[in-house]
């Protein structure tokens, strides 16, 4: 396959932020922020770096359900404690990733971790909703914790930085998160002047979120902190050059191309499946989790 640059479709600024509970001040890039094709990624909420004041009562989001997809939480600053109705709990520290497969249904809650909350400080996170194909929407929920310490990474030559592979495969380095469809999800940690090359099929929906610093994409497209670079379905190669020290989240996935029916925290294929999800949640079929 000849290598051609994947065309940049748009460089998008963060949308106006909104609060999720009282602990997350997020810019939604899609689906409500921008109408861009990112299937199998359904939603990207970005809590840009923000200083939280100390609080003895941890801020966050109380018990809520999910069905039909996976939530992927990627921490850059601050720490989040979570609990779910399947009995899983843990803390997501900077560099860690929590990959929660809600699938048939789960209840969970997410709060600032107690010590972080008491001290306050910078907070920066991404939450992705990764859709599941119809045949996997009702599989059993599961939970994968990918800690920063254990994360597979590809070292760039000359100490120029590294590419941490959360899911997928970069140059033979395989991410530990298992996925239901083909997904490449990496954190690129680049020193100023470092160059990274990525390849992905033309039809994969692909974007870069600049978490820190600024970069040049494919030579001449400049993007800076908090911007999302969205790619068109043309070409298959991407080069990223860090204009200064940079952290970049790369997401690329094979579209599922199935009908979507969404209501609040449920992501299904048909409206009647949403009704069923609401009824099941109301009647306790998602289990129980203490507030």
């Amino acid at each position, binding site marked *: 396959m000849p290598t051609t640059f994947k065309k940049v479709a748009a460089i998008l600024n963060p949308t106006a932020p909104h609060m999720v509970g009282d602990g997350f001040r997020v810019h939604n890039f899609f689906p409500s922020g921008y109408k861009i094709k990112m299937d199998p990624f359904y939603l990207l909420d970005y809590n840009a770096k923000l200083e939280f004041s100390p609080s003895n009562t941890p801020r966050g989001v*109380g018990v*809520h*359900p999910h069905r039909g997809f996976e939530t992927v939480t990627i921490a850059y600053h601050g720490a989040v404690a979570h609990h779910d109705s399947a009995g899983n709990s843990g803390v997501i520290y900077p560099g860690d990733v929590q990959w929660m497969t809600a699938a048939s249904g789960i209840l969970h809650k997410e709060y600032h971790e107690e010590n972080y909350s008491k001290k306050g400080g910078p907070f920066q996170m991404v939450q992705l909703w990764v859709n599941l194909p119809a045949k996997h929407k009702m599989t059993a929920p599961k939970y994968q914790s990918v800690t920063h310490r254990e994360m597979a990474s590809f070292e760039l030559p000359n100490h120029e930085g590294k590419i941490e592979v959360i899911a997928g495969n970069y140059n033979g380095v395989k991410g530990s998160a298992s996925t239901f469809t083909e997904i490449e999800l990496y954190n690129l940690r680049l020193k100023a002047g470092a160059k990274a090359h990525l390849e992905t099929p033309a039809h994969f929906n692909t974007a870069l979120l600049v978490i820190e610093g600024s970069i040049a994409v494919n030579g001449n497209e400049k993007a800076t902190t908090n911007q999302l670079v969205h790619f068109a379905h043309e070409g298959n190669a991407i080069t990223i050059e860090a204009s200064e020290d940079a952290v970049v989240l790369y997401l690329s996935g094979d579209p599922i191309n199935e009908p979507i029916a969404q*209501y*609040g*925290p449920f992501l299904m294929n048909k409206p009647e499946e949403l*009704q069923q999800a*609401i*009824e099941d*949640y*109301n*009647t*306790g*079929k*998602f*289990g*129980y989790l*203490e*507030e």
Partner: protein
Amino acid sequence: MLEKFQAYLKERLAITDEQAKEATSCLKTKTIKKGAILLSPGDLRSDNYFINEGLLRYFSIDEKGKEHIIQFAPENWLLSDRNSSVFNEPSVFYIDAIENTEVLIVPSHFFVDIQKLLPHILELNIRMLHNSIRFMQKRINMLLSATAEERYLDFIKLYPNLTLRVPQWMIASYLGITPESLSRVRKDLAKKHFK
């Protein structure tokens, strides 16, 4: 944003699109920010609110400062304070917006004014009034005689998606139970139904 109310009328009256459009052409919409208060005790309002988008709450506050929710009004509900809109007496209730809300203001005289155009509107209004009485009778009976679980099961039939839109304490307030009792009810249901 008159389409939803036009559809509401068309569902209940045998009228044409044109009649529905003409009948509603004088109505105005109002947007209310989440948390804003639309009605307070002492106010006089002749308006009914038809909810296009969002969620209103009709409630009282007792001497101890505790809130008691009489009614939630999500999309396609008509909400009014009868005390002031019909009897022209100061309201004893509050109305506020739980979400950013858009309402259509339907003045009380609308149903009288529009008779020439929609001859059956008064019958509809009477039917809606009876429906409202029936709803309140059932609600009083549930509050007097039903268990917390029965009240909750009735609530989720009437308002299936409100469990995703309002905090637990508001549902508990509507049901006339403590938030702890509501948690127990939900826990018991999960024990029965979670596999």
